[in-house]
């Protein structure tokens, strides 16, 4: 949710990183990003949390 809201505020080409303890986020975000047409940069499992990086593409 914060990701969607933040993407509206940044410029095209900017990247944002979401840190989440919720595994669901790591799965949901790539699915949504693909659907809307932004770009996934990476998803990293840090053990106690996930880091998900998205680039705004439009």
């Amino acid at each position, binding site marked *: *949710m*914060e990701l*969607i*809201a933040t993407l*509206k*505020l940044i410029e095209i080409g900017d990247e944002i990183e979401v840190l989440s303890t*919720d595994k*669901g986020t790591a799965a*949901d975000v790539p*699915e*949504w990003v693909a*659907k*809307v047409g932004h770009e996934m940069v990476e998803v990293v499992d840090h053990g106690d949390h996930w880091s998900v990086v998205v680039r705004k593409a439009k």
Partner: protein
Amino acid sequence: MGNRILIVGGGLAGTIIANGLCRQLGTQLRKGDISITMLGTSDKHLYQPGLLYVPFGKIRETELFRDQRKVLDKRVPYHIDPATNIDVDAKKVTTQSGKVHEYDYLVIATGSRLMLQNIPGMEEGAHWFYDLDGARKMRDALNEFDGGKIIVNVNVPHKCPVAPLEITFMLYDYLASKGVMDKTEITYTYPIGRLHALEPLAEWAKPAMDQNGIKYETFFNTKEVDPAAKTITSEEGETLDYDLLVTIPPHNGAEVITDSGLGDGGWVPTDRNKLLREGSSDVFVCGDTTNIPISKAGSTAHFEADTIVDNLVSLMTEGRWARDYDGKVFCFVETGMSTGTYVWFNYTTPPNPGAPSQMIHWFKLAYNRLYWLSARGLL
């Protein structure tokens, strides 16, 4: 440290803080060692959760308002003179009338505002209940409604995380009792891949919607509304027809926040435990306007305010911190016109809604009356 406290915003958060400080700092206030001043936008205090009942004609408009002067402790001067610039380096707040207020401690509690204008066609094509004017128009539209397609469209970010589900189930009950539900189709749209950001609420909502034949579209981020064609289109490429569109508009923080360069979208970067503005040691942030990724709700504002009161009093009288905010949020959830449930959670405990019951619905209705006590800091 000096002794002038300035509170910007006289909504729920600002009012609870002002009243709480007065109760704990009575002696200092009497002697004139400490001063508390509030800046606001209106002489009336609006009970926002009551707006949910307006479209169904279930609350009198006079019950929604109290005089701010009566809700706020007498010892706090209240200026209806909105802040136009907050300068955290010079420790000064400038107002619409051109006054400059210097402070030693600042509390920013300017809430959030509706941004219908962020979605093309929304203002013309949709109904909403997040402000009084919108709620009145929605009441008229529901009065006339005798069947067709209703869309409940949720945008982010927005305050009161449960209102979108509440309005959906209340619409269902209202239309069923009006006898038009058999000619009506309700579709609920949500931006992420499930029915609610809080997973347990999403899991609870799905069977409840299925059972009542309420349809849903997930991954629906609104791109535009065509008021003439009566369609709504998502960023994901879905277009839906509607006869009545009910939207939960996206929100931003107050204009003064962006104008003062204190945070994109009007959300102030805030330490989630101390509730201090990041980079400041004398600026507290409370309620909807923080950027903390938890629900923007009255209960959040209330629990945060209690923490800030305790810390400010300790800092001013003993030079130490009293406690951290633990992320606590509590929400009553109306699950129809006569049943309700509740959820609570904090930074470490996930939410878990109980089974809906009539008793909890009555609790919520009772709470609607108790709000004024809680704003006054008596609860």
